[in-house]
């Protein structure tokens, strides 16, 4: 085309006037695909990126793990609009109100893990040991993520292929049956363990995934199997995984903290009780991405009373939010006298009724107490995923399943919880009322220990569906979560969860 040539000649002359001849520009503030995966530092940064994104999913994971359980269900005492959050504890989720959309965004990290694994398997940039440690971490993380999908939606799409480009029209993909997802979780766990080999180090104030974390996950997964299939083998696998951690880590690095409160202290992150935690930090990241649905409004709180009848001082009780989901009042009353976990976990709020009598009206978390930034309290405590008491109680759970005596583990936890008030003859196993059924004892101990750590719903589910139906208003056909309409539109081969 002649005209094009003439035009181009002019374009070229203008270009010369501009003093530059190239349309190939390199980005300054981003790295392109061409330049990534070239140095060990890039692999390292990617692993931090995976954990950083894990952290951004922590609120969704909290909701998946606890919101539908019997922990919640109180009417928020702030009188706030609950904006549909009441559907979690009421278990009135349906296709129109799925509570969580887009599978909690979990795939946005799974895909990154797939990419990391595919690149790391074929790189020669890394040393053998670094490469194996990374793969151990990322297979473990992927197993953890897939386990969430398995427990929440059952069937789920699974692929090991990272998204490197998209061909529109060929993107629909059917879900893999739940049983296969579960097998995949187990497979990833084994891959993780074999890559870790004998490396039990836990890095970065225990805020990075480690072999111990994979073993904790393994115990959880096999306990799930054991409760369902009644298999002694599975319970044994779980127990072995936990004992493996105990045997290969020093009690100096991994043990119960002396006090329950100490576990969550802002200035003692990565303490000896932690196995794996989500790292939060002032000016870096707030707990649950700053979500404040569990906390009361400042001015409102100031009109209520402490247990001793004094007006609440909001410059002391300065952890505020807009409460949309409240812990059930009876959960506060369930703790036995002397159990330090009650006041570490919850703050009780009272209203004064006739004759100055106090009436318990509100509860909000005290577990994540945060730190002051100037005059404002900021919730930026770590969010523990696995800690040593979880190890002990899962060990107890495995022992119960194996018909062994769980007393040692349970009592270790109780002893720390009651501290000086511990009296083995009254609160020690098997002397509490609940201890008649050791499974109930473990389950209740886990409620007290892990309330607000995103575990209760999953615990009930692990112990068995009958536990879920006993403790919550959930319907048996709706123990999994519904899929939002948008997700079904985006992937026409996807089907609504059975029961919705």
């Amino acid at each position, binding site marked *: 085309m002649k005209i094009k040539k003439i035009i181009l000649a002019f374009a070229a002359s203008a270009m010369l006037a501009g003093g530059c001849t190239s349309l190939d520009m390199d980005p300054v503030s981003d790295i392109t695909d061409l330049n990534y995966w070239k140095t060990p530092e890039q692999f390292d*940064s990617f692993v931090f990126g995976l954990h*950083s994104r894990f952290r951004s999913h922590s609120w969704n994971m909290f909701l998946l793990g606890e919101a539908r359980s019997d922990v919640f269900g109180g009417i928020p005492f702030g009188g706030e609009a609950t904006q549909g959050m009441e*559907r979690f504890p009421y278990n009135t989720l349906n296709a129109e109100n799925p509570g969580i959309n887009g599978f909690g965004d979990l795939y946005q990290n799974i895909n990154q893990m797939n990419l990391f694994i595919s690149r790391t398997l074929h790189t020669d940039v890394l040393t053998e040991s670094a490469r194996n440690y990374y793969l151990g971490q990322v297979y473990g993380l992927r197993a953890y993520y897939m386990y969430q999908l398995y427990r929440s939606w059952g069937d789920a799409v699974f692929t090991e292929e990272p998204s490197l480009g998209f061909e529109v029209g060929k993107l629909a993909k059917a879900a893999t049956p739940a049983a296969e997802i579960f097998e995949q979780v187990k497979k990833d766990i084994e891959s993780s363990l074999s890559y870790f080999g004998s490396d039990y180090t836990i890095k970065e104030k225990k805020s990075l995934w480690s072999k111990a974390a994979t073993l904790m996950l393994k115990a959880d997964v096999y306990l799930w199997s054991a409760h369902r299939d009644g298999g002694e083998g599975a319970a044994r696998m779980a127990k072995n995984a936990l004992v493996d951690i105990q045997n290969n880590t020093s009690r100096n690095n991994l043990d119960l903290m002396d006090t329950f409160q100490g576990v969550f202290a802002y200035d003692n992150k990565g303490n000896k009780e932690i196995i794996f935690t989500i790292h939060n930090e002032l000016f870096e990241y707030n707990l649950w991405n700053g979500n404040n649905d569990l906390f009361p409004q400042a001015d*409102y709180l100031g009109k209520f009373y402490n247990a001793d009848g004094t007006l609440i001082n909001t410059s002391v009780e300065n952890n505020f939010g807009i409460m949309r989901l409240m812990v059930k009042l009876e959960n506060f009353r369930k703790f036995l006298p002397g159990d330090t976990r009650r006041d570490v976990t919850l703050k009780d709020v009272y209203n004064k009724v006739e004759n100055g009598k106090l009436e318990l009206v509100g509860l909000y978390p005290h577990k994540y107490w945060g730190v002051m930034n100037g005059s404002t309290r900021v919730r930026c405590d770590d969010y523990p995923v696995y800690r040593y008491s979880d190890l002990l109680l899962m060990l107890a759970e495995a022992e119960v399943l194996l018909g062994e005596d769980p007393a040692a583990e349970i009592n270790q936890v109780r002893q720390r919880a009651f501290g000086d008030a511990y009296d083995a003859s009254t609160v020690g196993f098997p002397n509490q009322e609940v201890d008649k059924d050791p499974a109930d004892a473990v389950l209740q101990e886990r409620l007290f220990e892990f309330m607000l750590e995103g575990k209760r719903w999953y615990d009930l589910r692990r112990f068995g569906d009958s536990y879920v139906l006993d403790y919550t208003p959930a319907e048996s056909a709706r123990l999994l979560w519904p899929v939002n*309409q948008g997700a079904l539109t985006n992937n026409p081969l996807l089907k609504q969860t059975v029961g919705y």
Partner: protein
Amino acid sequence: MKRALFLIVCLCFSINMMAQTKTITGVVADAAGEPIIGASVLEVGTTNGTITDVDGNFTIQASVGAKLDVSYIGYKTQQIVVGAPNTYKVILKEDAEMLDEVVVTGYGMSQKRSLMTNSISKLDDKVLQNAAMSNAAQSLQGTVSGLRVTNTSGKPGSSPNIVLRGGASINKNLEGPLVVVDGIVRSMDDINPSDIESIQVLKDAASTAIYGARANNGVILVTTRKGVEGRTQITYKFKGGINFAREGYKYLDAGDYLYYQRLGWQRTNGGSSMENQKGFGVNSGVDLAFMTDTNKHLLNEGWQSMTDPADPGNTLIFRNHAGELHDLTFRNAAFTQDHYLSLSGGNDKGTFSSSLGYYSEDGQIISTNYKRVNGTINGSYKLLPVLTVNAGGSFSWSKMPDLWTYDLKSPWNGETGEYELFYRTMSMFPTWNPWNDDGSPAAGWSNQDGNPYYWKDKLTRSTTNRKTSFNIGFALEILPQQLFLNGNSSMYYTDHQFELFEKKYQQIGQAPNTNRNASQTNTKVFQQQHALTLEYKKGFSGHNINAMVGGEYFDYQYQNLEARVSGAPTDDIPTLNAGTNRTYTTSTKTGYRILSGFARVNYDYNYRYMVSLVARYDGISKLSDNRWGFFPGISAGWNVHEEAFFKDSKFSEVVSLIKPRISYGLNGNVNGIGNFDVYGKYGSVGAYDGNLGYLNTGVVNSKLRWEKSHTFELGLDLGFFNNRVHMIMDYYNRTTSDLLTDVNLPEYTGFPSFKTNLGTISNRGFELEAKVNLLTRKDWSWDVTANTSFVKNIVKKLPFNGNVNNRQGGEQVWDPKSNSLVWLGGIQEGKSLGDIIAYKQVRILRDWDDVRNHAGDFLDEVANLYGPDKAAEYAGKPGWKPIEPGDVLWDDKNGDHIINSYDRQVVGNIYPKWTGGFSTTLNYKNWSLYGRFDYAVGHTIYNDLKARILGQYNGSFNLITDVRDSWSETNTETGIPKFYWADQNAKKNITRSNNGTTNLNNNNSSFYEKGDYLCLREVTLSYKFPKDLINKVFLTDASVYVTGQNLFYITGYDGTSPEPVMDIQANGRGGIDNGRYPTPRTVLFGLQLSF
């Protein structure tokens, strides 16, 4: 005039011509006899010339037989032949015919309207003359056909939203036209309207193709004032005015507020905890208590009492503060001033112009303000007879304090909180005293729920913009009058600065906040453009050719630096040096380049047949595999009225102009692509325990290409009665294919969406511009202009995704016609965009009989409500409530007696169908009355503010007076449901499935209102002082005027502004009115003096 000519002719013939120079004097005047100052008198073929003085007199040496051209801008040039007399009187006729309007077509070229084959609209310059505008783009509202201009905010300095022909996009914010100011690509923000000579809008693809890959959404060409040869002028303009606030809703006084709130709380929650409720509980720190003997005396101090509606045994005592915050917040009478000084002049060697402007406008809301300083300088000089150079520069500085209503928890999110002022602050409970005992303003509960007088001083935010442009160019005449080489280089530099500082403050019930956050963001953009063009003009035996070929290089560099600190020990230093914690620092750099070549050929034969060809070839760094695009355009026209057969026909007596036009062209757009998107990105996802994490934030997408618009257009220019009626009509069909469309991805891919070139959208529309001279008498004239545009968008093609119509998003509802479930809304092939889907309110259930008869066995799955027949099964179940009188009877579309999402229906569309405006100018002697109106018809607005208030989503805020008409046992025939505290927690009669959050779809249908409006945008009465009067004080021009702006809207819409809400994606709030800063009513006084 005739007499003068006669004189000349007579003299020419009666006296022998002698080739000898003599002194000629003369006077030049206009048709009214007013002398013309600065008219140029030039002997043809020589450089001998002069200009007229203040009395219109001139003196020149010329020989008998010499021809003198007498010219003045805006008048037709007259030629006189020097004869025997030594004095001449020349009357110049005004050259105001629209036909000879000169239209700029880009890259230094222009064309007469009569020869034009394209669709280019020119802004009536009256629009810019009188009104005070903080943003020059406001002038385009309702004045140019094909442009939909909507005010997004009445805050001074805000830029309106501009969309050409309905926009070419499926799922992103509609982009505005490319704005080119004197050849520089930039925005219209911060340009002084007084500096503007003309604004034109290139609409059809055959004209915009010269701007190629960026012209998809049209091109706005702005030309600023330049010096004119032979005319020296000093002009001073002043405008001063007052802005009056536009009233919003009326709110309840404290007594009514307490009545509804306490009753509403009881209805929703029973009696518990009521007294701790903000605003209407006696323990909530407001002027409210149960009456006792000890506080009874307050009744003598302005307090009032009432029976507690929740418990008739109690008496409440309270003080009414209704309206106090409203009066504090609105500055009813805010001032605007605009000063403008310009100097210009020139001779045969060069021209010069410069200007200085200062503009200041106070907003209706206290502390909002816009200040702007502009300076320009332009000059050209003839270095050699064949070489002219020109250079110019402009500078602007503007500053806007931002509102204090940002979210305090995340003050970094930019300007999100404007609407909160109009929702939250305006509806603060009337039981609260916004003043402390010592007379100082009270903080209240937050920056949004408190006294603005407190917060505006505590939370300071401001935006400053500096924009500088510089250009230098040359014009070389290679062949006289035929071949020209032009070069132009420009540099454009903008500096945007955002500063924030939060002083110590204390909210009710909290410890003082001494964080003292401070932040500063600086964004710099440096842009250079270099263009070279070769132009050729030739006319021979009726053929006229004008051709141009050129090239351009465009380079854009962006950098941004942001830092935040906290912990300054005092309020004294707002800058970052005082902070003790460095909490956040970031900087980014990015940029792109475009390389282009272009050409244009205009041809006509005897002014009858016209053809124009345009082409551009663009390459851009943002793309990789498909980097280059070719954009051609062709157009043709036929001046039928110039044909002999037409002139001879009877039609010509009535029809004076008839010109059919046809055009076809191709444009591009690449704005939807990030600078480095195609390469696949690895970007930061934040630090983790102090270690920066990277992830793959974008996948490789190298196949992306320009999106392309094909436009086919038919036009017709018509003139009647000697062009006293002049009309321009256009029909267009624009198909934009390869649309840069975000495809929602299945979740498993790990990315929410992906950009593709896989959509096609078609816009068809009709535009009409008309100018009518209704009356011309000796002292009278009356002109009317009007324009209107109609547009319809249809999605033609979408990326295949396996859904019916390849639908993305949308809502599944029951279709009674087909007796099946169908998908509405979202984006679907064959459907238009912008439909709103909601639950249809049939009426309010009057009484129990009505409930039993019409909703007896209803199950409302949206709100978890059950009809009386279902009570046995549902009563007492957690989360379930009964349907009662006063609740809404919903349209059960599918008749299954279950109200769920399938029962929704389309209740409107967010886009207007028709937009336009009209103006009228009535002149009587030296008086002129000008009026300008604009309108938009066909759009629906979701009145979220009203829904939010009547639904009491917040819990404590005051209610608008409409609540008095809500259902009660004694008011059963009404459209407003029974009032409950927090509708989203009660019956969801209003919010439905949104649970009180702000969303376009899925609310009660009765809160969707037609936004049709007609606005009186401007009315001006001006007076021009007679020349003989002002000449005595050495003035050449003097006029005064009074202007009213935005005086009223005629509309059925209930909120403050019926203008469509067009920020489709900014907050996902397209079509939603959740509180808007209304445009003020303004009254201006203006003065213009020229020396």
